[in-house]
């Protein structure tokens, strides 16, 4: 029977063993927290990142490009709404499957922070570049960057999960 802890302070060797024990638990839980999201959600987030810069570019286009601006705005809002609904479903299923809370700090901050700051700049920047140049390649480029980021993150999670497991 494990004691209730009313023992003397541990020796350095015992303290080291206890720390090693916690490190093992942490590594195991981190591997579980790095469980990749289902492919259908990766496809959803990739589609959202592809549609968003194009729809924003269409909304900001002057004169109208392919569709009226209100149609681009509706497309953008509908894409976002669908994404958030799918995100809620995927997050709930992921938590139920893994048994741990969703964490956004599994990947290193040196990668995630520049992307969180950089992606909106790429999306917004490409839309304004398109507005001023009329070249849709800006939008397709931003869509390509978004898709690459989404797929890259998924593959990173897969690798991290395999490595940690």
């Amino acid at each position, binding site marked *: 029977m494990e004691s209730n802890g009313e023992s003397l*302070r*541990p020796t350095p060797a015992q303290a080291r063993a*206890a*720390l090693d024990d916690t490190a093992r638990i942490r590594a195991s839980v981190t591997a*579980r927290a790095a469980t990749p999201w289902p492919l259908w959600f990766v496809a959803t987030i990739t589609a959202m990142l592809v549609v968003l810069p194009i729809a924003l570019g269409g909304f900001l286009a002057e004169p109208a490009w392919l569709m009226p601006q209100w149609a681009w705005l509706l497309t953008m809002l509908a894409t976002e709404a669908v994404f958030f609904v799918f995100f809620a479903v995927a997050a709930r299923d992921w938590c139920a499957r893994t048994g741990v809370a969703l964490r956004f700090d599994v990947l290193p901050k040196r990668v995630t922070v520049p992307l969180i700051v950089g992606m909106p700049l790429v999306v917004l920047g490409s839309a304004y570049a398109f507005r001023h140049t009329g070249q849709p390649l800006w939008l397709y480029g931003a869509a390509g960057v978004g898709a690459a980021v989404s797929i890259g993150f998924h593959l990173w999670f897969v690798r991290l999960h395999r490595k940690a497991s």
Partner: protein
Amino acid sequence: MSTSTTDPMDGFNATIHAPNRLRICALLDTAGEAEFGVIQEQLGVSASVLSKHVTVLMDAGYVEQRKAVRDTRQRVWLRLTRQGQDAYRAHHAALRAIVGP
């Protein structure tokens, strides 16, 4: 002018130091929140043993639970309270201090 120094050993916590309770705290500190069955699997203990340790931690105000229904079955999710998180981290620091540089 006064200087205050805190001894890391002050954070040593006998309630947390019991091996399985230390593992539970380490797991919850890392995961944020975890399902009872996952903790049981990670620790390799029976549900009754885990339940006893969780009760000790809850009585100390270190752990709180949330019940959620999934596939018609009730699941218990556990998380560290703010007090539990502080106590665990202080205890971890005390262990590091014992080990030394």
